[in-house]
């Protein structure tokens, strides 16, 4: 079957935009829904517990220097954002982004009774649960479950990875994980796989077996749609060489080719810096910043930055006081980054961490992470946050 027939047969509404990158088309040729509906959210997870205090450095606070004798970033090295806080020097690539007004820093995001275990805290962030509550679905998964106007496709949420995070798993619907659309397309076009799908309809009503077949069919149609929509798109931008930058490049390809996906998920690993933090974290922050800057500029050049919102989180911050191995141990509240072309409050969103009022050596949180999620659900993904988060959270004014 040729591609044109395939598209006709599968009922994907192409709106004439399937084969031409968005930036090459006059606006009036674009369907209305593509202008308004396709706001994208990109979630970036920093795994291991990124040390927020050496990321957004409170250089204006003496306590920071007292508590971090050997690993504090010197004031002259900090990329100053105001007279209190500035960025780690390895994040120079983001200075321009910040100056353009495409970046918001939210200080001290956390939750009550914080858990200091990696896996439990990551669980809490991915499910959006209270710290004494165990949910088996993720917050983006429950957004998919809500079956709203904007999340009806099987490829509504894509994770650029080999396996799917809990954040992306709902009760009835789940996101799709893929590192490379061409590879998934090849796998779903394997003759054996295709033969399995030549199925008698009888399966589709059976409970678990039906669910397996439904998953296969959705995987197959998503793989075709993603591959066919994105394969002709060629990015003109250059990206640094790193796995992380590659993931973002894939996301940009999807966004810029007009994929009707709402949520993308990527992660960067290695932030558990108990020992010799400076080099390790610096190296990761550099990868993060250079990849992110390239990604945002790429979106800008494709007129997609206004339709895109990027958030970055880590499962917890680190203790205010360094440890004896030139590293830091597990802590609590942490900063989050928000990027986009349509931020309401640019720059630093709220007060810098108070280092003189700690909870047994850890930062107290100012904002619950679910207020950040809730804001995005309400204002960006157009769903009622209480339906997804199981109770209503007050929204914030960053978008």
């Amino acid at each position, binding site marked *: 079957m040729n591609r044109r027939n395939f598209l006709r047969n599968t009922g994907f509404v192409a709106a004439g935009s399937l084969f031409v990158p968005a930036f090459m088309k006059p606006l009036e040729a674009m369907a209305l829904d593509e202008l308004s509906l396709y706001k994208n959210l990109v979630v970036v997870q920093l*795994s291991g517990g990124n040390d927020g205090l050496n990321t957004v450095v409170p250089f204006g606070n003496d306590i920071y220097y007292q508590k971090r004798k050997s690993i504090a970033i010197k004031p002259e090295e900090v990329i100053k954002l105001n007279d209190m806080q500035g960025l780690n020097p390895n994040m120079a690539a983001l200075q321009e982004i910040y100056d353009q007004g495409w970046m918001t820093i939210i200080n001290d995001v956390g939750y009550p009774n914080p858990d200091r275990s990696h*896996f439990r805290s990551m669980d809490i962030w991915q499910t959006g649960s209270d710290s004494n509550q165990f949910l*088996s679905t993720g917050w983006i998964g429950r957004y998919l479950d809500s079956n709203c106007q904007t999340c009806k496709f099987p490829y509504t949420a894509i994770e650029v990875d080999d396996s799917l995070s809990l954040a992306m798993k709902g009760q009835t619907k789940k996101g799709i994980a893929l590192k490379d659309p061409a590879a998934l397309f090849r796998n*779903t076009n394997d003759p054996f796989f295709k033969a399995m799908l030549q199925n008698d309809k009888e399966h589709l009503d059976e409970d678990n*077996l039906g669910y*397996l077949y439904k998953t296969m069919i959705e995987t197959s149609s998503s793989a075709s749609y993603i591959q066919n929509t994105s394969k002709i798109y060629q990015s003109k931008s250059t990206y640094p060489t*790193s796995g992380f930058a590659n993931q973002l490049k894939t996301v940009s390809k999807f966004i810029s080719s007009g994929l009707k996906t709402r949520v993308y998920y990527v992660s960067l690993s290695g932030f558990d810096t108990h020992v010799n933090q400076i080099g390790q974290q610096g190296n990761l922050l550099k990868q993060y910043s250079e990849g992110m800057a390239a990604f945002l500029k790429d979106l800008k050049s494709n007129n997609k930055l206004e339709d895109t919102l990027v958030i970055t989180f880590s499962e917890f911050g680190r203790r205010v006081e360094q440890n004896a191995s030139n590293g830091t141990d597990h802590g609590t509240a942490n900063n989050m980054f928000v990027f986009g072309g349509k931020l309401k409050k640019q720059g630093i969103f709220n007060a810098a961490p108070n280092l003189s009022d700690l909870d047994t050596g850890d930062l107290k949180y100012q904002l619950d992470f679910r207020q950040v999620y809730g804001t995005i659900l309400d204002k960006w993904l157009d769903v009622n946050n209480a339906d997804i988060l199981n109770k209503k959270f007050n929204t914030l004014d960053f978008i």
Partner: protein
Amino acid sequence: MSAKDNFLKVKHLYHRAGFGISYADLQKLSKKNLAKVVDNLLKDSQKNDPINLVNDYESKRQLLVQAGLYSKKDLNDEEKKMRQQIVREQNEVSRDLNIAFINKMINTDAPLREKMTLFWHGHFACRSNNPFFAQQLNNIQRTNALGSFKTLLIEVSKSPAMLQYLNNQQNRKGKPNENFARELMELFTLGRGNYTEQDIKESARSFTGWMYDKDGSFIFRQNLHDSGTKTFFGKIGNFEGENIIDIILEKPETSQFIARKVYKFFVNDNPNETHVKELAAHFYNSKYDIASMMKKMFTSDWFYSPENVGTKIKSPAEFLVGLSREFYVTYNKPQVLIQLQSSLGQYLFNPPNVAGWPGGQSWIDSSSLMLRMRIPSLVLNDGEIDFSGKADPEDEAVIALSRTATTNANANMKPKSYVNANADWPKFLNTLPKGLTPLELTEFLLQPKLNAKITTMVSDNKGLRSTAVEITSMPEYQLC
């Protein structure tokens, strides 16, 4: 009952109560009547063969060294090295322990005991960085897998792994920590909604002083125990931990909660409440005798009714163990088993949280299903792996220690690796009767009923070997 009928029932029993059955054994067993087969299964599983991978003496020595280092304020380089060395060793042994558990399930001739151990492994879900603690808890679950639930519950509650994981180590007179008391009721016994916050507070006081010592043995610290009067479920007394457990077991809700969970694990994701009640009443009246409950279940007609046959999604452990057992697979690089577990979402000894793995349809998403359908050809034909699981959050520290590891963890394309496993095809083919057709083999390998499509697919008479690889790659093979 026809012979064919019995054949299918025994096959179903062994898929649910164990990890499958060889054709030869199935032929032998299905000549007996079903009640006898169930008795046999229970008798075979009386054998208890604990895992003795982690050396008791060496672990105690390490624990004492760790305790010594922990009490020091500043460590010199020598001491730091020693501490890191211990952590490195523990991580390595933890991986070996995981593989030992998988191998035990693959090779056991007490399948019900191991299957039950896997059930308790998810029910009393726990993580411990200390492989000795983890092994001990796993053996507690194995030894009591089919015994008294009360004994099992008390031993789990006194195990250092659980005392540490649920912070009972920090639960002391005047400064109670309620974590253990809460999970004991919410997840281990009564279930949510069958107790009050007050019950949690009062029972937490009763467990004060339940701790483990520097060398990792249980100790009741009288001086940290709150011996005052507590009110628990309306009863008043100077309760201790054991009294609390007794009162919890007096409540039928506990037998219902456990019976429902057992039903969901062994019978169907959607519990039939009539059957659950029946099972729970039996469990309660037998004073929480687990073997008796299992026998009741395996001899009930409903256990074999069509809606309960070939309709459960195998957990990743059931899938990997079943496949390896079926084809006598040897893993020359056992590490691959860990990679497969974590990519499929069930890394044993590392549950997502104390609630265990949610199971059912949550095992399956597009990537995990695609991978499951490819694993049989990877394992049985030593194929190349082109996927990578995510790093476990607990491995982040290890990743952060080296630039190479960080680069690898974040690499888009991993170096190619092979499963490097061998199936023993001659042995497998030898278990099959002479003249078995591909279609008959298919009927044997799959639990769901065959449909026209599969029948057509396998009727083109490939050899048995390629039929087997093809069948195990089907979505139907994900069910049991």
